[in-house]
C-alpha cells in the first residue's frame, strides 16, 4: 500500500488512528475467525466461511460494474461460471494445479467479457441490462449443453485442492487461508480501483454518461474496462469455488445466482464497497443462520431484500457514508497536504 507511506508526516497521529478499522478487519479475517473455526473444527463451518468469502469477492466485483460504473449487470454469475469451468477443465483435462488455474480462470473470464463487451457496450440503461441477461443465459446454456466439453448437467469433478507451487494447501485451515488471502487481495485491488481517479471517472459515467463524454472521459472504453475487470474478479472467485468444493455443475451459475449477487450489492448499498461486502455476508450467513426455519429461509431472503430496498433505499451502508468511511480510514490519498498534490484537496488514489 504505497499511498500510506507517502502521507505527510504531520498526519502521523491521525494516520495511525485512521488505520484502525482496516487493521481490525484484517485481524478478524486472518486471526480471530480461523481461531474460532479451528476451535469448533467442523467442516461445515469452514464451508460456510469459504462460501461467504467467495461471495464477498463476487459482490465486490459486481460493485465495480453495477455500483460504481452504473451498468446494471444481470449475467454476472455466468462469468463466475466461466472462471470455475476454466479451473475445473484445466485441472481435469490437463492436470494443472491451482497456482496456474487461478490466474487463468480470471483471464479467461475477462477475455470472454471483453469479446462480449465489444458489440454490446454501446447500449445504455435497460437495453444493456437485457443484453447482459441474454449473454449470461447463453453462457449458461453452453455450460449445460456442450456435453462433450463441459460434461453438461453432470458437472465436472475437480480432483485437486488448493496448492501453491506444488505445496499442498488442502487442509481445512490452509484452504481457508488461501481463500481469505486471494479474496482480501482482490477486494483491496477493487477498493483501490473504485476509490481512485479511475473510480471517479466511472462514477461520472454512471451519473451522466453524455456529460462525461463531453468532458473528455472516454465512456465506452472505461465501461469496457470496468466490465472486463469485474469479470476477471468474478472468474477468480469461480476458480476458488471450483477448487474449494471439488465439484461444479451448471446449476451453480444460473440466473438466480446473478440475481443473488445483485441483491447483495443493492442491500449493501449501490456504489459502496463496504456495503457490498456487508450485503454478501448478510445474504450468505442469514440463510445459514436461519436453517432452523427450514423452508422459510428463502422467503426470509426475499423479505430482507424487499425490506432493505423499501426502508433503506441507499442500502445498509450508502455510498456517501461509505466514501466518508474510506476517506477517514484509508485517507492518505485524500489528505490536503502532501508531496504529491501540494496544498490542494486530494480526490483519491491516482
Amino acid at each position: 500500500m504505497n499511498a500510506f507511506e507517502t502521507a505527510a508526516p504531520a498526519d502521523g497521529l491521525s494516520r495511525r488512528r485512521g488505520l484502525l478499522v482496516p487493521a481490525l478487519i484484517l485481524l478478524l479475517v486472518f486471526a480471530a475467525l480461523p481461531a474460532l473455526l479451528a476451535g469448533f473444527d467442523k467442516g461445515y463451518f469452514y464451508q460456510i466461511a469459504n462460501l461467504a468469502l467467495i461471495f464477498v469477492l463476487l459482490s465486490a466485483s459486481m460493485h465495480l460494474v453495477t455500483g460504481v460504473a452504473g451498468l446494471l449487470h444481470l449475467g454476472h454469475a455466468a462469468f463466475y461460471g466461466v472462471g470455475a469451468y476454466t479451473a475445473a477443465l484445466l485441472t481435469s483435462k490437463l492436470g494443472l494445479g491451482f497456482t496456474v488455474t487461478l490466474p487463468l480462470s480470471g483471464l479467461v473470464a475477462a477475455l470472454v467479457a471483453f469479446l462480449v463487451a465489444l458489440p454490446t457496450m454501446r447500449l445504455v440503461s435497460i437495453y444493456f441490462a437485457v443484453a447482459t441477461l441474454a449473454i449470461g443465459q447463453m453462457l449458461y446454456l453452453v455450460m449445460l449443453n456442450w456435453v462433450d466439453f463441459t460434461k453438461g448437467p453432470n458437472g465436472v469433478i475437480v480432483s485437486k485442492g488448493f496448492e501453491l507451487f506444488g505445496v499442498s494447501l488442502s487442509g481445512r485451515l490452509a484452504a481457508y487461508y488461501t481463500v481469505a488471502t486471494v479474496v482480501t487481495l482482490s477486494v483491496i485491488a477493487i477498493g483501490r480501483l473504485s476509490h481512485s481517479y479511475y473510480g471517479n471517472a466511472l462514477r461520472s459515467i454512471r451519473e451522466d454518461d453524455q456529460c462525461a463524454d463531453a468532458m473528455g472521459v472516454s465512456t465506452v472504453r472505461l465501461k469496457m474496462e470496468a466490465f472486463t475487470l469485474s469479470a476477471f474478479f468474478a472468474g477468480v472467485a469461480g476458480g476458488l469455488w471450483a477448487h474449494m468444493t471439488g465439484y461444479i455443475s451448471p446449476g451453480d451459475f444460473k440466473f438466480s445466482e446473478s440475481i443473488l449477487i445483485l441483491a447483495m450489492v443493492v442491500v449493501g448499498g449501490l456504489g459502496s464497497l463496504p456495503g457490498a461486502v456487508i450485503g454478501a455476508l448478510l445474504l450468505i450467513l442469514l440463510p445459514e443462520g436461519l436453517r432452523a426455519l427450514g423452508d422459510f429461509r428463502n422467503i426470509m431472503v426475499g423479505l430482507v431484500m424487499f425490506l432493505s430496498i423499501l426502508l433503506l433505499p441507499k442500502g445498509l451502508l450508502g455510498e456517501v457514508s461509505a466514501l466518508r468511511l474510506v476517506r477517514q480510514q484509508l485517507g492518505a490519498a485524500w489528505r490536503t497536504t502532501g508531496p504529491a498534490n501540494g496544498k490542494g484537496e486530494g480526490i483519491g488514489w491516482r
Partner: protein
Amino acid sequence: MFDPYYLQQLAIGLSLGMTYALMAIGFTLIFGVLNVVNFAHGEIYTLGAFAGLVLISATAPPIVAVILGALAIGALAGFSLERIAFKPFRRFTDEASLKSRAMRESTLLSSLAVSIVVREALEIVFGSQMRSVPFEYLINTPVRVGPVILVTGDFIIFGVAAAMLIGLQYLLTRTRVGLAIRAVSNNPLGAKYVGIDTDRTIITTFVVGSMMGAAAGILMGLYYGAVFPAMGFTPGIKAFVAMVMGGLSSIPGAVICALILGISESMATTFVSSGWSDMVAYGFLILTLIFFPNGLFGARRERV
C-alpha cells in the same frame, strides 16, 4: 411442394409462439407501455395456473369458471403487486425523482424480491414438484388439419391471444382509460398536470396486465398438463425477448416477434438438440439489440 414434416414443425412453432405471445401481451402492457420494469409477471402467471388447479381439485367446475377464477386471482395479484412493490417507491413525484434511474432500479429489485417471496411461498404450500392437471380438463385433443396435426388447445390459445390483442388495442386507442394509460406512460408528470389520476391509471394497467398473465398461466397449465412453482421463469424470459424485439412499447410487435421466436425455435430443433433451442431466443435478442436497437416495430427512440 413442402415436406409435411416441415409443415408440422411450422405448426408446432406457431403454437409455441402463440403461448409466448399470450404471456408477452400482458408483459408488454405493464413493462413496455407503462414503462415500469416488472420482474414479478412470471409469478402472476404461476399464481393464475395454481388458482385454476386449486379450483379444479376443490369443486371441479366447468372450464370457463376455472378461467374466470384465474382471472380474478390475477386481478387481485396485480393490485397487490402494485401496492406492495411499486406504490411505495412513488413517494416523490417531482420531476427529478420520476426520471431518476435509482427509482426504476428500486422497483425492478422490489418486484424481483416480491417474486422470490411468492415463488418460495408457493413451493412451501404446493411443493416444488410438478402437479398434474386432471385429465378431463386438458385441452390437447388432437385435431387433423390437412397434413398436420394440431390440438384443440392451439385453437383456444390462438382465439384467446387474438381476443386479448384486439381488446387491448381497442382499450388503448379507443377508450379514455387507454388514453390515460398512454398519457401516463408518455409523461407521468404531464399526465398529472392535466388532471389524470396517475395512481389509479397505473393500478388499472397492472390489474389488466396481470389478468392477462394469469389467463396465460392457466391456459398453459391446461395445455401442458403440468403446474409447478418455477413454471413462470422460461416463458417470462421469452416474453421479455419478444417485447424487446418488438420495440418495448408495441403490443402487436411483441406478438409478431413471439411468433417469430416460436417458429425459429421449433425449426432449430430440427437441426440441433432441443437443449440448444433457447439459444435462438437469446441470439435473436442480442442481434436485435445490436442491429435494430429500436426493436423491429418500435417507435424511434432517442438513445438505447
